[in-house]
Structure formats: structure tokens, C-alpha cells
């Protein structure tokens, strides 16, 4: 049986380094964790990157921790492009300009405070990350999350995925300079933001997760409002997608651009829509179901080509799945409370995970005797996928660079932390 690498988590005690290698498991066994204790006198740690390339950045980060600009509105990162005329031979990205030390500043803080960090280090996938953090805390504190809270978490997580994918599709249209399509997709994105805000108070779904549940319950009227709202938006998106599908100038720019093969995706351990467009149909919602995902049936869309167009199709099909999940769940939310009545913080350590809009994320949380967070480690989909970005950005025409960037649709805030 083969297991794919997911993350490397390092913790420090008085005498030892504790290294925890995490591999994706199956629903029955959750993850496989290899645990290594190393005396601090040892200055070197044997590397696994030579065998498992996906561990490359994780090991580099472990070494660094314990021991810049672009046009338009873009995040801060530096890309060195080596070109011969119009053809770019190779891309060397440099990240971590936005390093805010989230994991370090979380140490010694209360759970409530770290929750704010978990939610706000990557604002465009705030709900998924706060969910992964809350689930880790709930495992440590042995909290029984009410069924209604679990279902509401799925509702908000899918609403976030829906909005994120609309924004990603708008970004792809923008990268091909198709002005009308960009405007139409942007209109849908803003409408999804307004829908989120009307329902939850916040356009990016901040302030919803709590250890033990969610801070906001939905009335029957609100459920109908949301169900209808996403359906209307999806119909508009379908119309747009049908127009895009028959616009040859658009397809020409996406097809066979930014190729990532299945072998490469596996070797780099890529996650999310990018991996699913390259034939790796792993989705934590199905592999390791959390919240109410075990009771929800949906398809994980997969494509084989691994090019920009395949990634767009995966995004579009995932939006459709999210709408189906929302419609099914909103008409039959279980009765009960939206949050556990009391959460007593206990010492311990656990891993929380979620399928964020950009792919699998896992949060390792250790709580000490005083109820403070002693260690917080984040593995994010952007971190995992930026590592493999250079694969797609080799031997291409210069004008395709924004398209490769947009079809990857990654966040530097999520990667740099």
C-alpha cells in the first residue's frame, strides 16, 4: 500500500526535536504518522526529500524555522523568468515576502486568540482554515459537536468554496484579457460576496467558527434565501461557461498551457483542484470526512489533461457540486444547537484538517497545561502547490505567464503565513 506525503511537523522540547511525518491514509485509518525523536545535540536530520520530493519545502522550512513586486492588484512575490526572446525557459519563484510568523506568534496565546489568527492569515479561505483549527481543538478537548453545527459548517465551507471558485474563474477570464467574460464573472463574484454578507454579516465569512460549533444559526427563511441565491448564481455561471466553451480565442490560450503531468503532481504531492485536473482525485471531504461530509454524497470531479483548461473545468464542476451539496443540506438541516454549550480547554495535541477551496490543509495544535497554544503548525494548499508551480511554468510563451498564474489560483498569504 502506498501513502502520499502530507506534511512534516516539528516540535521542540527541552532536550529533543520531535519530528512528525504525516501521510494521507484511508477513511478507516485516517492519517499515517511517523514519529521521530532526535536529541538536540544532533545537528543534522536525515532528509526524506531524495525519496519523497513533496517533502522538499517542508524540510527546508523546518531548517529555517529552528535555527518582493508585480502590476495590477497582486500579492507580493518575485518571479525570475529566464527567457530567450519571447520564450521563457524556466521560472524561479521566490516567496515568503509576506511571512508574518503566524505559527510563532500563536505560541503562548489563548485558543480564542489563535482562532483569530487561523481565520485571518488567509482571508480568502478563512472559513476552511478556522474549521481545521477548531476541529483540532475539539479533538484535544474531546468536544461533542452537535449535528446541526456540523451541517452548518458544511454549508459555510461550501459557500466559501463557491465564492472562491467564482473569483478564480473571474481571474482566469481576466488573464486571457476577455473583457466581457471578466466583467460577467466579476459580477457573479460580487453577488456571491453580498450573499455571504447578507446571510452571515461578513463578506469573507469571518467570525463564524468557534471551538464546539458555529456562532450563527440559520433560520428556515435564511436557508431558502441561500439555497435560491446560489442556484441563481450558478445558472448565470453556466450561461457564462457555455459561452466560454465555444470561444475559440479563449480556449486556445488555456489548452495545453501550464501542463502538470500526473506523475509530477504525485511526486510533488499537489493538492486541490490542481491535482484533480492532473488525474489525482484526492479530496479530504471524501478520503477523511470531517464535519457532516460523511453524510453528504457528491462527486469529486477529475480531469486527466493537467493543463489550464482542465483546471478551469475542475473549478466549474466543483462549483456545481457545491451548489448540489448546499441545496441538499439546506432543505434538511438537522435540528439542535449550533454550538456545543461548553468547551473546557484541556492539554494535548491533535491534527485538524479540511479541504480548503485551494486544497487540503492541516493544522497541528498543541495545548499546554495552562490552556495556551504551545505549538501551532500549518500546512496549507498554497504552500504545497506553489512548490510545484515551476513544473507548469517551463518552456512557454511569455504572454502565457498570467494564464498559468491564474489557473493555479494560489494565495501567497496562505503560503507564506
Amino acid at each position, binding site marked *: 500500500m502506498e501513502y502520499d506525503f502530507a506534511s512534516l511537523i516539528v516540535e521542540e522540547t527541552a532536550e529533543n526535536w520531535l519530528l512528525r511525518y504525516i501521510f494521507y491514509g484511508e477513511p478507516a485509518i485516517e492519517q499515517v504518522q511517523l514519529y521521530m525523536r532526535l536529541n538536540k545535540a544532533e545537528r543534522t536530520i536525515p532528509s526524506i526529500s531524495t525519496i519523497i520530493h513533496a517533502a522538499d519545502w517542508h524540510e527546508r522550512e523546518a531548517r529555517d524555522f529552528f535555527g518582493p513586486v508585480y502590476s495590477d492588484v*497582486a500579492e*507580493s512575490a518575485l518571479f525570475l523568468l529566464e527567457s530567450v526572446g519571447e520564450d521563457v525557459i524556466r521560472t524561479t519563484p521566490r516567496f515568503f515576502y509576506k511571512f*508574518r510568523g503566524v505559527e510563532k*506568534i500563536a505560541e503562548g496565546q489563548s485558543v480564542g486568540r489563535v482562532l483569530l489568527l487561523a481565520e485571518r492569515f488567509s*482571508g*480568502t479561505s478563512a472559513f476552511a482554515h478556522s474549521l481545521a483549527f477548531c476541529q483540532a481543538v475539539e479533538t484535544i478537548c474531546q468536544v461533542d459537536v452537535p449535528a446541526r453545527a456540523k451541517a452548518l459548517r458544511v454549508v459555510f465551507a461550501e459557500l466559501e468554496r463557491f465564492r472562491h471558485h467564482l473569483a478564480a474563474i473571474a481571474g482566469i477570464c481576466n488573464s486571457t484579457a476577455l473583457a466581457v467574460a471578466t466583467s460577467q464573472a466579476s459580477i457573479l463574484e460580487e453577488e456571491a460576496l453580498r450573499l455571504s454578507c447578507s446571510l452571515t454579516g461578513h463578506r469573507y465569512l469571518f467570525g463564524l467558527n468557534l471551538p464546539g460549533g458555529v*456562532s450563527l444559526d440559520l433560520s428556515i427563511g435564511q436557508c431558502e434565501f441561500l439555497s435560491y441565491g446560489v442556484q441563481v448564481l450558478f445558472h448565470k455561471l453556466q450561461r457564462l461557461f457555455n459561452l466560454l466553451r465555444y470561444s475559440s480565442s479563449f480556449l486556445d490560450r488555456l489548452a495545453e498551457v501550464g501542463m502538470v503531468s500526473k506523475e509530477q503532481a504525485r511526486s510533488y504531492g499537489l493538492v486541490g483542484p490542481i491535482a484533480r485536473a492532473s488525474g489525482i482525485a484526492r479530496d479530504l471531504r471524501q478520503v477523511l470526512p470531517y464535519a457532516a461530509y460523511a453524510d453528504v454524497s457528491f462527486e469529486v470531479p477529475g480531469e486527466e489533461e493537467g493543463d489550464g483548461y482542465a483546471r478551469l473545468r475542475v473549478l466549474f464542476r466543483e462549483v456545481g457540486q457545491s451548489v448540489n451539496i448546499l441545496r441538499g443540506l439546506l432543505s434538511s438541516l438537522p435540528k439542535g444547537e449550533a454550538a456545543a454549550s461548553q468547551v473546557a480547554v484541556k492539554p494535548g495535541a491533535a491534527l485538524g484538517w479540511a479541504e480548503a477551496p485551494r486544497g487540503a490543509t492541516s493544522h497541528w495544535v498543541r495545548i499546554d497545561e495552562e490552556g495556551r497554544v504551545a505549538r501551532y503548525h500549518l500546512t496549507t494548499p498554497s504552500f504545497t502547490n506553489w512548490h510545484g508551480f515551476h513544473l507548469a511554468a517551463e518552456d512557454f510563451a511569455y504572454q502565457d505567464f498570467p494564464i498559468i498564474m491564474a489557473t493555479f489560483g494560489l494565495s501567497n498569504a496562505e503560503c507564506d503565513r
Partner: protein
Amino acid sequence: MLRWVWEGIRRGIVTTAYPAREETASGVSPGFPAGLPRTFAASEEAETAASCCPSGALGREDRQVLFHDQRCIHCYRCLRQLTPPFEWHWQGNYEWAVSPRPSAERKEKFGKSFRRSLHLRVIDAGACGACLSEIEQINKPYYNMHRLGFFLTPTPRDADVLLVAGPVTDHMRLPLLKAYEAMPAPKGVLALGACAISGGIFGSSFASLGGVANLIPVDILVPGCPPPPLAILHALLAIVGRVQPNMGATTASPQGDEHHV
């Protein structure tokens, strides 16, 4: 191509009428707590009401609870975790721009010649992505800042105003300073969101400076986490003197460590 033209016409105009008319659509702003400052019967009660705020946006002075909008990060804990009689309502306003300087000084800077043509350079100094997403929205059909004479430019040499989001990480300190120095005078700086104002939830730490004002002078502050698109439009209109911003002092933030630079 014709299909696309028809699609654009069919959709019609969705752009907001702001600032000519107030925007009344639902979901354009996350809002702030309303009805503050508020006086309680006893100072213990005020303490109970203020202590639920993790970011210091609710301050207490004796029996009074005050609201510091620059520190609010929309966690909704005061709205959802307080039980009667401490609860209050939220209000979805968006005209939040704050000027830390007297208006005469601001007018002197840009005069009248920038009122209908202002070029902006966006710098991400460690933003979480939500602020940047809201800046993108003002460039899109619903808000369309072009109709008001605001344009994005890729280079600071063409920029009149710098839009900065994020708590100014160590690695972005130098690029931000260089971008500011490369701009021609007169130049303005807009600090967007709680992080750019005071470091927000990330504060001043070993990895971030905490607040743009610790590095370069700031003309307008836009509270919010993130500030909604209309708040950003309000700030842009304020910097060119087309609307009057709120007056207030900058929330001071201590400088981050220097050892990384």
C-alpha cells in the same frame, strides 16, 4: 465576438450610484457595532461588555464603553457572545475613512488638479488576501472606480497614491519604502484595513512592523477587516477632497523588531 457584445448589453449596468446616492443594497458592508459610546449603570457592567473584544476595539472609561473603529476586526464576538442587557446592534454603514491630519494640510497637498484623475499603486505588505480582493472589486463592474477618475498603475513612478494593505512584514519593508521613495511629489498614502493601521491581529512582532505609519507618513486610514469596496471608494474620494473624511488620531502601534533587516 458578437455573442459577447450581446451578453454584455443584456446584463445591463450594475454599477453603484455611490457617491451621488447612498448604496442601499444588502451585503455591501460588514458593519460596525452601533450606538457607541454607551453608558452603563455600573463600571463592572461596562467592563463585562468591553472585555469580550479581543482586538481592543471596545474600550472602557469608567461606566462608558467606547468604540475604536480602527481596531475592529469584525469578529462579531460582542454581537453574538454578549447576552442581554449588554448586547447591541450592528450597523452596515461604509463611510469609514479617517484622516489623522487637519483638512487644510490635506487640501494643500493635492489641490484641485487631482480631483478627477488619480493614479494608484497597490502594495501588498503582508495582507491576508481579503483586503486585496476588496481592492480588486472597486476595479470591477459593481463599483467601477474608473467612472470617478481613479486608475491603477503598475509602477510607483506613475502613481499619486499608494494603497497599502497588511502589517508590513520584514521582507516587504524595503520594497514598500523604495516604492514610496520612487513616487513623484505630491504623493499620498492610504492605509487599508486594521493590519495596515496598527498591525491588526498580527500586531508588531519579530516578523512584522505593525502599521504602515511606522515606516511612511499616512494620509488616510480605512478601518475594517477588510474594508468593504465602498469604504475604499470613500477613502479615495476623501484623499482628493471630494468628500469629508472622519477626523481622528492614528491608533499608535509599537515598532516591530529590527533584527531581521
